[in-house]
């Protein structure tokens, strides 16, 4: 039961955070700096979350480095999200089994 209360607490908190700006911000934000800020946020946060956390997913760090480099090069060359994701996954699996 206590676990369900935990789950309820986190579900409400997370939903609240997601819903408040979208429901309350009805007007166009005209501030140029703030608009630029909102554009940069997703890229910066994804980059920060990815690195260096990605390096600790395998016991041997070099394998994670190879997977990271492969994903960066593939994605930069506009290979599809699906292929980048599964490609570096397969690569890391293969290197671990060597």
């Amino acid at each position, binding site marked *: 039961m206590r676990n369900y209360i935990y789950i309820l607490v986190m579900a409400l908190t997370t939903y609240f955070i997601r819903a408040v*700006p979208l429901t309350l911000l009805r007007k166009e934000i005209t501030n140029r700096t703030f*608009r630029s800020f909102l554009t940069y946020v997703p890229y*910066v946060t994804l980059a920060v979350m990815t690195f260096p956390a990605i390096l600790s*997913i395998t016991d041997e760090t070099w394998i994670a480095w190879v997977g990271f480099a492969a994903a960066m090069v593939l994605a930069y060359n506009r290979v599809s999200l699906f292929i980048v994701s599964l490609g570096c996954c397969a690569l890391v699996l293969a290197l671990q089994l060597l």
Partner: protein
Amino acid sequence: MHRDVYMRGMRDGIPVMLGYFVVSITIGIAARGANLTAAQATTMSLTNLTSAGQFASFAIIAAGAPYLELLISQAVINLRYCLMSCALSQKVDQQMPFYHRLIMAFGITDEIFGLAVGQKGKLDPWYMYGAMSVAIPGWTLGTLLGILSTGMLPPSILNAMNMALYGMFIAIFMPAARDNKILLPIIFISMGASAVFQMLPVFDFISSGMKIIILTLVISFAAAVLFPIGEETAESEKAAGISGAGDAAKLADAGKTAGSAGAGDAVGSAGAGEAAGTAVIGETAGLADTGETAGTAADGKEASLS
């Protein structure tokens, strides 16, 4: 009309669903460590839809910590959803009814947000509903499979599945960096700063969720001040004439790349996944247009129409 947009959202959501399915298997396995039952772990995934938040919650729940601690940790770790929600509020029709906003808000995740902001023009709520309706079951069912299969999968496979998550993140931000020259250094600075924060023991007192928020706020704000994005005003018509053409060329180029990628990868059973994946490329290129320093989002759109 709604149906077409909804179907497009579903199609674009397929790679997200596959990624979620794989990642949430690891979530399910981790949930076992917090002594959650399969029903509890599945309920959590269905109602929360947050990888970092759920991962962080397991240690807190296992420790039997106060509810307030869980609340604060979720608020901090998921603050980026708040920022994404701000961004989406600018992307939807201002007249859009309240209930659409309430439903859409539930589906704000890194990946669905990535798809949504990549849409040209105003965001149709039905597009998000389409993406949500495939991504959420992927996340929920993966969690269930994960907790039921605990101990059955070797570590090498679990590690590789983790890689798929980060591969997906990289595939969201890197194509945009190719189109917007200022984004590439910003991404590398973000990674470098993140590594420094992680490695220096001085910062050990800050939780990893908090580090993500601090870095995101500081770097994004600095970038916004130093490299503001062009306004959507008529004043920049002159600049638009130049950069608009560039954007159109870029869009055409991205379209070509996407087309050839689709043709090259037509092998294999995941035909639908391929199509969705290439669609994501096209949209990411569109997304990068909004980030053009010289031009504006509106210019890019006009250019691609003409």
